[in-house]
């Protein structure tokens, strides 16, 4: 008999984080203000100037959290839009120089799908493989760049496995070859010390809701020297230096600012998350047949992805239901597609399907981890007991 946890434990912080109290407070203050409702572009009147000044302060704080200058930040609706702007913007601007793009098989769909669209527009994309841990193979990028390569897109931290790619090395190769480099840093933001300029990238996308901010707002860092080489994908009022038209969502930006400021004040957070990760791994690996998906060293501590042998993936997720987490399968109504990321790492369909991603966050406690481990052990034991003897001969 499967005993389920009596309360929901939230361990899906890699998918999204709950808004922090200071974020809610900042957003409510903005929405309740007598003046901040004004359009930040309407600087011909005082309320507009007040809103513009508040947005400017937020821009400076958020830029500082990324190691960027304020004028290098373009507000977007999130990392997906930021990725779209970076990829379509750079590829279309440089279309006359070449049509070859390099990326990695394990990128997020928010990069894969724009690149597939570019393929349909006549661009050629070379997909780099990773090793079994999810790291880019040595020399793979340099070997793939050609005379007509104009753009490379490599994520900093993988959203499923937490694996960190060597972006400074990739940036050096791209600079040598005059290849624009875009980095999806949605999963790195708040987990690694980000310094976009020092990384050497041309553009870098982040999202507020991954750092306890609101959904619906993100940003694209665009290195100032690179901005003239980016075509907008939205046209309208010329906001964001012409790169992203549309009235700025002040309350979202205020929430984003509060979340970014909180990052600066969580110096002990990383160590605490590492301790929780160790506790979780010890619990998960106390069962046989559990393997880590990802790299043991080059990874953020917030993401733990494991596969479990001898259980059906969908049933495992269902049995774990009091624990909110993600599986390695993309569900649709008819079937479950094994994770393309884990397949790219060489995992079998069955192992990819029986994977679980635990996302540890700021509000995760020791008790949450213990509850999740207990539920995991109960679920795996329950399912293995019911699936044993399948291959035996008739007795």
């Amino acid at each position, binding site marked *: *008999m*499967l005993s*389920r946890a009596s309360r929901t434990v939230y361990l899906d912080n890699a998918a999204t984080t709950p808004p922090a109290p200071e974020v809610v407070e900042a957003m409510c203050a903005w929405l309740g203000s007598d003046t901040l409702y004004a359009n930040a572009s309407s600087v011909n009147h005082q309320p507009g100037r007040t809103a513009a000044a508040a947005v400017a302060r937020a821009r400076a704080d958020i830029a500082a959290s990324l190691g960027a200058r304020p004028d290098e930040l373009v507000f977007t609706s999130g990392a997906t839009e930021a990725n779209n702007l970076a990829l379509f913007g750079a590829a279309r601007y440089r279309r006359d120089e070449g049509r070859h793009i390099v990326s990695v098989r394990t990128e997020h769909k928010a990069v894969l799908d724009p690149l597939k669209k570019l393929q349909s527009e006549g661009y050629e994309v070379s997909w780099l493989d990773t090793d079994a841990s999810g790291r880019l193979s040595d020399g793979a990028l340099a070997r793939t760049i050609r005379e007509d390569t104009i753009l490379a897109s490599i994520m900093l931290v993988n959203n499923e496995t937490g694996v960190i790619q060597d972006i400074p090395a990739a940036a050096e190769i791209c600079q040598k070859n005059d290849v624009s480099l875009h980095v999806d840093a949605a999963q790195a933001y708040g987990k690694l010390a980000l310094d976009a300029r020092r990384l050497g990238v041309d553009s870098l996308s982040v999202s507020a809701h991954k750092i306890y901010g609101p959904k619906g707002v993100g940003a694209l860092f665009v290195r100032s020297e690179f901005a003239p080489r980016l075509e907008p994908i939205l046209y309208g009022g010329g906001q964001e230096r012409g790169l992203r038209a549309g009235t700025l969502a002040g309350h979202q930006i205020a929430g984003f600012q509060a979340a970014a400021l909180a990052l600066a004040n969580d110096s002990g957070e990383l160590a605490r998350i590492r301790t929780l990760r160790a506790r979780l791994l010890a619990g998960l690996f106390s069962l046989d047949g559990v393997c880590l998906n990802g790299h043991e060293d080059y990874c953020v501590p917030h993401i733990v992805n494991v596969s479990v042998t*001898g*259980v*059906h*993936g*969908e*049933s495992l997720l*269902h*049995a774990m239901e009091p624990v909110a987490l993600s599986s390695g399968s993309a569900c649709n*109504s*008819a*079937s479950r597609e094994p994770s393309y990321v884990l397949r790219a790492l060489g995992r079998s*369909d*069955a192992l990819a*399907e029986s994977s679980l991603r635990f996302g540890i966050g700021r509000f995760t406690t020791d008790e949450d981890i213990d509850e999740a481990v207990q539920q995991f052990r109960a679920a795996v034991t*329950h*399912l293995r*007991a*019911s*699936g*044993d*003897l*399948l291959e*035996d001969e*008739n*007795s």
Partner: protein
Amino acid sequence: MNALATRLFDSLNCAILPDSPAVCRSAVMHDPGSHSALRFFAYPDRGSEKIMLRFRASACPDLLAACELTCRMSTGSPESWPAADDLIRELDIPIEKTGRILLIEDALNDLRRQLKSGPIGQ
């Protein structure tokens, strides 16, 4: 999943096989597309002419619940074994998963054939 299916999935009591089982028949079915595999066992019920049905399966939650319900609905003879339609209706199986419920029917039909060829224990 409906409440009954969830209760059955959480239980899976009929996946517990009898200790030191006597002679039994079993039938295995696989569906590689859904990574489903199941095996039904027919045991002689001690001291009676009845047949006890048990299973083992690695499958989605709906199919596991259906296997459990199959065993619970069985009253001791192959005639009492439920049809796929009964299981689909009782458990509100989603339309896209009804195909895999037929694995149960295939396994039960196989068991029926085996039992017709000779009673358990002979």
